[in-house]
């Protein structure tokens, strides 16, 4: 079995994001970059499937600048067997990413694509669904549990929706997108980092894949969302109730 795991390079979740003075992007000075946390969860799940099923190859793929090698090496240090970097220096929207991933999928022919439900930079939550549509294969999004028995032709998934938990069965091959509660990604060990240096990292371009990666989305400018200011501290329940009744008039 082969599992393809896309890994996006994003500012670390702990970073305080600031828009640059020109409003053309975010401040990148001193910003630490990581694997998108939802993608790390997807990779962890692929590793656990391999631990359970045995014969599984895990291929990590990233799209972007040369710097994405860092996240691919980190992914291989976690446990991916090899990595592909699709070099593309311009920013990409979800549909363009899905088209590139579809080309990688056709080349690799995996049984499963496991990826994060959204990237924490653009918060788009679209690439997995679009990829499944382009390939005409099934999807299960926002997964918090996954069962894939050996030689099974379908994967049973527990999905987290606004209405509650939903269980669906999806035919393989399929695209599965990971939610937070699926697992807790393992830490990378020193031995893992050493091993990752020797694992193959292959580079290609969108032209090599024959994909038109023109984005439909054009970001004109960015600005910080309006910040709320701290209000007042009240000293007692009575004072709070008085404020809510007479000042805010919300109860």
């Amino acid at each position, binding site marked *: 079995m082969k599992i393809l795991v896309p890994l996006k390079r994003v500012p670390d979740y702990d970073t305080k994001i600031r828009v640059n003075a020109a409003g053309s992007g975010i401040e990148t000075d001193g910003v630490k970059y990581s694997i998108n946390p939802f993608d790390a969860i997807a990779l962890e799940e692929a590793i656990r499937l391999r631990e359970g099923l045995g014969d599984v190859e895990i291929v990590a793929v990233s799209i972007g600048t040369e710097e994405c090698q860092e996240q691919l090496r980190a992914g291989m240090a976690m446990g991916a067997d090899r990595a592909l970097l699709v070099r593309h220096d311009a920013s990409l929207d979800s549909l363009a990413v899905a088209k590139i991933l579809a080309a990688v999928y056709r080349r690799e022919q995996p049984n499963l694509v496991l990826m994060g439900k959204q990237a924490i930079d653009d918060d788009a939550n679209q690439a997995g669904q679009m990829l499944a549509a382009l390939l005409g294969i099934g999807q299960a999004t926002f997964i918090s549990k996954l069962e894939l028995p050996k030689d099974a032709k379908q994967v049973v998934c527990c999905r987290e929706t606004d209405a509650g938990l939903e269980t669906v069965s999806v035919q393989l091959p399929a695209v599965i997108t990971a939610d937070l509660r699926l697992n807790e990604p393992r830490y990378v060990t020193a031995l893992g980092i050493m091993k990752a240096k020797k694992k193959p990292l292959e580079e290609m371009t969108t032209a090599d894949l024959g994909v038109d990666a023109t984005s439909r989305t*054009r970001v004109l400018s960015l600005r910080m969302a309006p910040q709320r200011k701290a209000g007042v501290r009240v000293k007692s329940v009575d004072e709070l109730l008085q404020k809510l009744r007479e000042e805010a008039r919300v109860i």
Partner: protein
Amino acid sequence: MTNPLSSTKILIVAEHDRGHLKLATLAAVCCAQQVCQATGGAFEILVLGEQVADVVSSLAPYGAAVVLKADHSSLLNPVADQYAQVISKVVKDRGATMVAAAASTFSKDVLPRAAALVDAGMLGDVVSVTPDGDDFTFERVMFAGNVIATVKLDGPLKVLTVRSSAFSVPTKVDAASPVIDVSVDSSSQSGLTTFVSREEKPSGRPDATEARIVVSGGRALKNSEDFERLVGGLADKLGAAVGSSRALVDSGITSNTLQIGQTGKVVAPDLYIGLGISGAIQHLAGMKDSKVIVAVNQDSDAPIFEIADYGLVADVYQVVPELIGKLGQK
């Protein structure tokens, strides 16, 4: 002079929970009304499901050119590949130039799939749509709600989900929209994904995305009995919905349907009361657009106090019973 965008045709994909209209859909209808008013365009509403007559009639008084009803047994559950197939066909048949729905797990599952089927770009969590010459400019939120991006979406068809907190209630009109049945060919349904089961919603309380008041609990609540007694008790006294931070969902104290935050529900009620919630950036992303925020927390340095209108540094176990008791009196 006619507006270059007068041929705008918006298709709203309605969301319902087994026949009960999700009120967030009305925010998407409001967005469509605003765009049509500014451009001279028109909008239509699509309802998918089985036995959706009530949803269709509740959407009739908002001035849609038509309400399209895709009523079929294969659409009982919102399985993405089946829904996306029907939506993409309706988009083509009706000549839509824009598709919109409320930002929710339903739309986020189904709409990107439909967009890719018709080769359209998509924007999620849109907070404004502005006609701009012969095109539109959109604003959407990124980075856990911290950044607002001004964007263009190229191509003849634009797909979006809108944040309901950014739009208000749509205007009612005198005449009811005509209803057109959409034929659903069950033999074309792919069956790639099969719905197995769903865990029913546990409480009779309102949904946090639809309530005027939300009472939310965090790490200070030690177990589900305390959560029910304190957070639930206060909510019931106020006729409010309950919400939860991720910490309580992870520790099994609350259900995932209650989670508010970047990856949970986004709420913007008139009053949000956070009980024992420290206010991680991911939680704030889900509630900072509330009109009035109250925070009760023992830790006076908790980040939630930086955005709260009224902060009370106190132990929730002590003050919430007092709050519940005093709400009975005037």
